[in-house]
């Protein structure tokens, strides 16, 4: 198995931020109930302050004919505010976990306080064949989507269940940030790579996600189907890191 530079792209981008990283231990059933936490890194700072900028917590729970994925995203707004997005996606039991419906709320919150005026937004949506209908309580918007569509956060879940061998690229419409409809996306398996993480060799499987309106995403999944890293250009998610005291 070759570990040529192109095979390790995009791990090379986040390597400087992985000092002290220990891969998670224990069993993981990607099709079961689980909770995975990620640290968000922004890698673009010229000043070199590409440290942790936020967090992402995903919770998967089985539901009739599918599962529910809860999303909790937080990003720092210096000096003392937070950008928050919380949502819940009810997914079908299919390859990408196509959403049947979702809700989300977003806001900028002050330190120790509630949402800052004019920043709170709540939306929900339902999908049917070839269409998504988005509501915000007062307004309704219908948009066409491919029959196979998924939300960006749900791809963290989907890659854990995909084969660890090459397959025909999966074509879909991306619902980015829940409500931004971006057509012409593909998800494919690239290859496996043995990588030294925390002093131990770990076999990772790379899945590439390309399409309109996204810089290529690469998901790095361990042998149990746990995405350890997700990197898109300057945006990176590292599982459970840094370790909490």
């Amino acid at each position: 198995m070759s570990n040529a530079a192109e095979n390790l792209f995009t791990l090379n981008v986040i390597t400087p931020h992985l000092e002290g990283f220990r891969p998670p231990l224990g069993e993981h059933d990607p099709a079961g109930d689980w909770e995975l936490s990620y640290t968000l890194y922004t890698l673009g700072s010229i000043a070199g302050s590409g440290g942790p900028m936020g967090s992402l917590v995903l919770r998967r729970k089985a539901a009739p004919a599918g599962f529910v994925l809860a999303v909790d995203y937080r990003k720092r707004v210096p000096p003392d505010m937070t950008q928050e997005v919380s949502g819940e996606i009810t997914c079908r039991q299919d390859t990408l976990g196509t959403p049947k419906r979702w809700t989300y709320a977003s806001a900028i919150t002050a330190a120790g306080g509630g949402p800052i005026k004019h920043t709170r937004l709540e939306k929900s949506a339902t999908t049917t064949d070839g269409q998504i209908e988005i509501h915000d309580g007062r307004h309704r918007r219908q948009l066409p989507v491919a029959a196979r569509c998924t939300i960006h956060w749900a791809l963290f879940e989907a890659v854990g269940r995909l084969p660890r061998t090459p397959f025909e690229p999966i074509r879909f419409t991306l619902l980015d940030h829940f409500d931004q409809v971006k057509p012409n996306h593909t998800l494919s398996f690239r290859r496996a790579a043995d990588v030294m993480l925390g002093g131990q060799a770990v076999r990772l499987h790379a899945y590439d996600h390309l399409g309109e309106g996204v810089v290529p995403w690469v998901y790095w999944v361990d042998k149990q189907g746990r995405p350890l890293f997700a990197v898109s250009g300057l945006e990176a998610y590292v599982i459970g890191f840094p370790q909490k005291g």
Partner: protein
Amino acid sequence: MKPNRSTPSPSSRRTSRRQFLRTGAAGAGALLAGLGSATAAGAATALAVHTGRRPNFLLLVADQLGLDAISAHGCGDVRTPNIDRLVRRGVTFMESHSTNPVCSPARSSLFTGRMPTETGVISNGRPIHPSVPNLGQRLREHGYDTVYCGKWHLPGGYPHQIDGFDVLPVGGGQGDLVDPAVSRTCEAYLKTRSRTSPFLLAASLLQPHDICYWAIKGKALVPQKLPFDQLAGRLPDLPPNHKSRPPAPEKLDRIKYAGFSDEQWRYYIYVYYRQVEMLDADVGRILDALDDTGQADETVVLLTADHGEGRGRHMHVQKWYPYEESVKVPLIVSWPGQVAENVRNDAHLVSGLDVTNTFCDYAGVAGPGGLGRSLRPLLEQGSTPWRDFLVTEHHVVGRMVRTPQFKFVRYEDDPVEQLFDLEADPWEMHNVYHDARYADALADHRRLLAEWNAQLVTVPPTPDVSRPRRRA
């Protein structure tokens, strides 16, 4: 289907506003193929005379968006359905220029209507001179709710306080992470605001500026050999002037990005267009909110950018320099029923100087005057006596004079000048400043530069607060 072109011909000057609104959209056809009938039908019923109520303003500022990086402007490597929607709804200026293709100076002009040498912001990291009021201050004084969300960079990137504005804080950093928060917050504002006063909402999105880091961190972000098999055959072509390096003033000539293979350049350009599409999605979210809340008919929407992006042209990344890829930016204006729909204006030289003047004109507020102009006559009537040339600033000491046919570039004390005949050489590959056939044109442009300079009301450069102060 031919695009509708607004020209400053004598006959078009005689066209009435009502005729222009009607024929501008319906007479010569839609700008985008396949959309003609719907657009024309919309325009035919959109002739309601403005009742006199002051409009709202939505100012969408992109960062590093080149004029031709939009699908409605002919770029086949990108898909921008939301910016295209704005193009269909209004007038898009194809001879639109940054006043100085760097973030802070250009933004100082957008928000004051003054050239960077008149705002004191001659380079990044400087505040606007306190004697020069910004657009927010001008409109707030006359009863507007003035709200700012996103990147400011005069001097702070994402300050929580800006004179003349209420700031909706979203945090800074990269466009991929901050722009969705900007668009969500702008949507929330549009859906929750009190409607007792008209508003100015400045939504300053960061994309596609993220591409800067692909050059800074090139080796990490642009691998020697791309791993994405699916991109084979799908990467954008290199531009025709990729390796063209016409003679240039020394300060301009030394800017060159080396180290990318052809495939890396093409991947770089591919990524840039994906970032433009990210921007487009956030523009769409804000436009949707305007539509959904029934405020679109009461709102002047203007989309522009601070500067363009090299995309491998002349071996360049990023901006700063006076070539077209750096200095040309979109300037699209819509106001349903008031501004002609689906018009492509190729004839008039406009710049970031004109934004504040236009908004002040529509608000009935005294504008900054100076060298900027209100675009309103062009938007409503298609033509008016207009400037014959404009000037942009570069690298503090560089100036570019742009006339309909030529581009002249001069850097203070540098013996090498540039003169491009843009009609014959749109890719700027042949500097003809030594060609005797162009001696008269060269002399004319030197004279125009002196004429422009004589009209400036300059202020001392404001301090660069982004750099540590030198100890005395």
